[in-house]
């Protein structure tokens, strides 16, 4: 529960904040740059919903989390390694990899899929607020767009993808932290490498899963 709170709950605010603004920005961008009189008005809400569900709420949020949570995991475990805390566990006979990594992986795979719900919801709220305050679109058109051709499976794919991405973030960052040798410079490098590798793996897995789930 402690790991769930630290890795999950503590990231919730940034997920909600970013999703809120992305939802709002998507509406503004589509209205200003894509929309034409030939397009139905509800297209703005429809396109915004699809972007949120298909990519933003799972992939992009997880890339952001790879930066925030992944580097945190790598540097925390790396510091434990260089300050001999992991050696202390090993000498006691505790399976250090299991003891340190497993709670983080479990916390991430259970927290991140929940973020999808919060991300989509706050993205819609962001769109609603910008349409209401900025007058970009009527509420009726926005709601029509959000409901237009809704595929429940798209939401499920976001949950499934985020589950895999959460595993990638926790395990890759954990690996880089656990295998640190040296001092503070190596800990910093482990944090950076974990973010880079996690992000690339997330994108690659996204490509793979999208083909598998949406084909």
């Amino acid at each position: 529960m402690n790991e769930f709170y630290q890795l999950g709950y503590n990231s919730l605010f940034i997920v909600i904040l970013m999703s809120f603004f992305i939802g709002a920005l998507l509406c503004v961008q589509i209205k200003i740059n894509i929309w034409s009189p030939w397009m139905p008005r509800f297209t703005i809400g429809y396109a915004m919903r699809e972007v949120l569900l298909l990519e933003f709420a799972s992939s992009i949020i997880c890339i952001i989390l790879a930066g925030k949570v992944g580097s945190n995991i790598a540097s925390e475990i790396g510091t434990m390694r260089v300050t001999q805390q992991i050696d202390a566990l090993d000498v006691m006979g505790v399976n250090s990899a299991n003891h340190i990594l497993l709670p983080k992986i479990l916390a991430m795979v259970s927290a991140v899929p929940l973020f999808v719900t919060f991300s989509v919801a706050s993205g819609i709220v962001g769109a609603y607020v910008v349409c209401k305050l900025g007058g970009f679109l009527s509420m009726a058109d926005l709601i029509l767009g959000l409901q237009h051709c809704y595929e429940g499976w798209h939401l499920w794919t976001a949950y499934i993808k985020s589950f895999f991405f959460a595993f990638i973030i926790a395990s890759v960052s954990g690996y880089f932290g656990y295998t640190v040798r040296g001092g503070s410079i190596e800990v910093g490098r482990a944090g950076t490498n974990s973010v880079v590798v996690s992000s690339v793996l997330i994108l690659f897995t996204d490509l793979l899963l999208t083909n598998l789930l949406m084909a």
Partner: protein
Amino acid sequence: MISITDIHKHFDDQEVLHGISATFEAGKTNLTIGRSGSGKTVLLRCIVGLLTPDQGQVLYDGRDIHRLGKREGALLRQEMGMLFQGAALFDSMDVFHNVLFPLEMFSTKTYREQLQRARFCLDRVGLIEAEGKMPSELSGGMQKRVAIARAIALEPRYLFCDEPNSGLDPISSRLIDRLISDITHEYGITTIVNTHDMGSVRGIGEQVLFIHDGCAEWTGTSHDIDGTDSPHLREFLDHV
């Protein structure tokens, strides 16, 4: 008793230990001394099983730590306590939970007894009043004392200390030395202490092993050390 036979260890193309053999007796404070980089820490890590020697045996009362099965190895580890150079307390736990941790993991005692044991260990090192503090709030000497309390929580048969006095003032150093020596005699533990502090050697050293360039150059008691005929040990003594 711990006996090591013909321990060799190399990293890449550099051989660090060149066939060290020694016996560390139970109920005595066994000191390993030598210059920085002589191989003391690598030897200790081979003894506790954090490193696997390329060649040789490490016997804990006849049990070779590097050839035990997973279960037997885990049981042997529960008989070991270790004080690391930097104390290695868990940052995420307060002092009391650091000491309680090995009990929670391995003890068959009831939770109430575990709490009592943790308090007893903290009291033994004189830090019962600091039980709610985080490791970062403690001085270096206090951290070492908490690490000792954690090391003895499971009533170990073997205690290992890697440079317990490094970074401490002379008064704190003697306090740590005295604590290690008292605990060793009180519980009849086999204790191995890595140090280059001659104050420790003269204060608590009973059996001394001098390592030079990865070789066991001299062994004897702390009383014999001044009469040594080893040129490297003589040089070491002259410079401390």
